[in-house]
């Protein structure tokens, strides 16, 4: 049987895991706020 490879190297990551691993500190994990929303 030929080898099989994972598209994301076996890391089964959700949006928040991806952003967390990148050290992003976004609002609720994946949101960029405008000035009004920041306030």
């Amino acid at each position, binding site marked *: *049987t*030929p*080898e*099989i*490879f*994972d*598209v*994301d190297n*076996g*890391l*089964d*990551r*959700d*949006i*928040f895991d*991806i*952003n*967390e691993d*990148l050290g*992003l500190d*976004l*609002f*609720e*994990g*994946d*949101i*960029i*706020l*405008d000035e009004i*929303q920041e306030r």
Partner: protein
Amino acid sequence: NAIIGERYRWPHTIPYVLDDSLEMNARGVILKAFERYRLKSCIDFKPWSGEPNYISVFKGNGCWSSVGKQLTGIQELSIGEGCDKIATVQHEFLHALGFWHEQSRSDRNDYVSIIWNRIISGKERNFDFYDDQVIDSMNVPYDYSSVMHYGKTAFGNGSEPTIITRVPDFMDVIGQRMDFSDSDVLKLNQLYNCSSSLSFMESCDFELGNVCGMIQSSADSADWQRLSEVSEGPESDHSNMGRCRGSGFFMHFNSSSVNEGATAILESRILYPKRGFQCLQFFLYNSGSEDDQLNIYIREYSTAHLSRTLTLVEQIKDIPSGSWQLYHITLNATNKFRVVFEGVRGAGASLGGLSIDDINLSETRCPHHVWHIRNFTQLIGSPNGSFYSPPFYSSKGYAFQIYLNLDSLPKIGMYFHLISGANDDQLEWPCPWQQVTITILDQTPDIRQRMSKQQSLTTDPFLTIDNGNYFWDRPSKVGAQVIFPNGTQFQRGRGRGFPNFMSQEMLKSRDFIKGDDVYILLTVEDISHLNTQNDPLPTLNVNDLCASFRCENDGICILQNGKAECRCRSGDDWWYMGERCEKRGSTRDTIVIATSSTAAVFALMLIITLVSVYCTRKKYRKEPSSRTVNTIMENQYA
């Protein structure tokens, strides 16, 4: 939960740009996510053509978006590494359309508990929730299955859940990224006042007596009957599959009661196409003769002449008996039309007939192939739980198989393999930019309520593996020899895919398994037209053909449709051109040519004008003397 404020709303058609930074797979996935919006809402997308505000999708760091229209002109939305999944793109675009996360709504503590001591220190703010003066949950109940919900371990400092659902059954439902939930669709359509969608046309499960406005023809020998069971099969309809005995209905053509050649015609109501291509999907059951067949026609009404054209689209023969079978038919109606189902009684004995149920018609592309897996629950329990699909061919001619791995339950893996095929000598290798889309079908009757799990990958011709070989090179070169059950030898390349395509729990939910059948829909399509980079492909034959084809002025030789061609160098205001890049052009040359052409035309016009003036003056100088002569002549006669 929508952001409050009309200023944040987009128009129904959103201008977008796919930035050059995006990976090829992400480009294809984004376009597929747009199709899900077009099917389930009135939101459409169009390439940006100068509108003041638009969304630029790019490959940034991570997956993120703003909430609502920002009125900043360009509005960025990042689909970074690992974010190229259809449900992730749907999630980020829902943010852009004005939605927050589901667990941010004001009443969330009634439905989930936040376990604060399991949250990474400093990340507690991600679990804030907001007053209903700030966000609007639109009178829709809390939705555990929303594509906008966090997963149970989000922002956790370990593997223990940070969110616990008040109803335990939903612990593994939150954070699923499959498709819009019913509530997601409801809220989106409420926020944007949607009353129709671009691509949805019809869905019919025959539960209502009006059979969705379908009509019986008078030009046939028999009628289709609306039934809930037939003694020879099916025992139940497909919509409910026996869960509500006696209440689920389907349409049945009793071929046992008519002679060979007899027909029964059922026509849909009149439908109005917008896009000019449709996919008809339905389930068919055969309990009649092996030779009974179903013909699909479209009856098109020409707007100019009110004429009706009946076109045969598909003849479905050799219908397996004893179970519901899924069929997809591609239609190309451009005028208003009806779909016509014609049951035809074949030769041989029949004790039952043909039955149809769960019809869906949408202006979307049909999947290219369907892998129907029967007795699926038995496979889950079998000792060797890995299976290969039958071989399929892509539209370009590449042969492939899908590998389903049930050995690592509760994770269900799915992988794509190129295999050796009949067209390999005519194909490009390594296989360039074929996007493979694998869908486990949620068999919920109405296509708008389905939450099918879909994942895509794209063959990158530059991808290499440890030994330096190209990953997607010809299977006869890089694959392993294997044998089909019928004894035929072939080569299978390495597989690439998803070790956790979906979990066993998810697969058991909704209607992924129905009547113990699972349907895996497959599409392999060429997306090289989405490549804005136009890199020369690493085709091994390039050197051979290009050896005798020299490009001048540092042009690069590439293979295009099997022929060597030059790609010439260019700068901001200059370029090389010609078959071998032998000619040089520049904007200065263009200016010189334009200026000299203008001067030449001016000079020519001046000459013509001067000659005309000269001739006219000469003519008028002569005329008085001739008139004088005439007068004299007249006077002489007088």
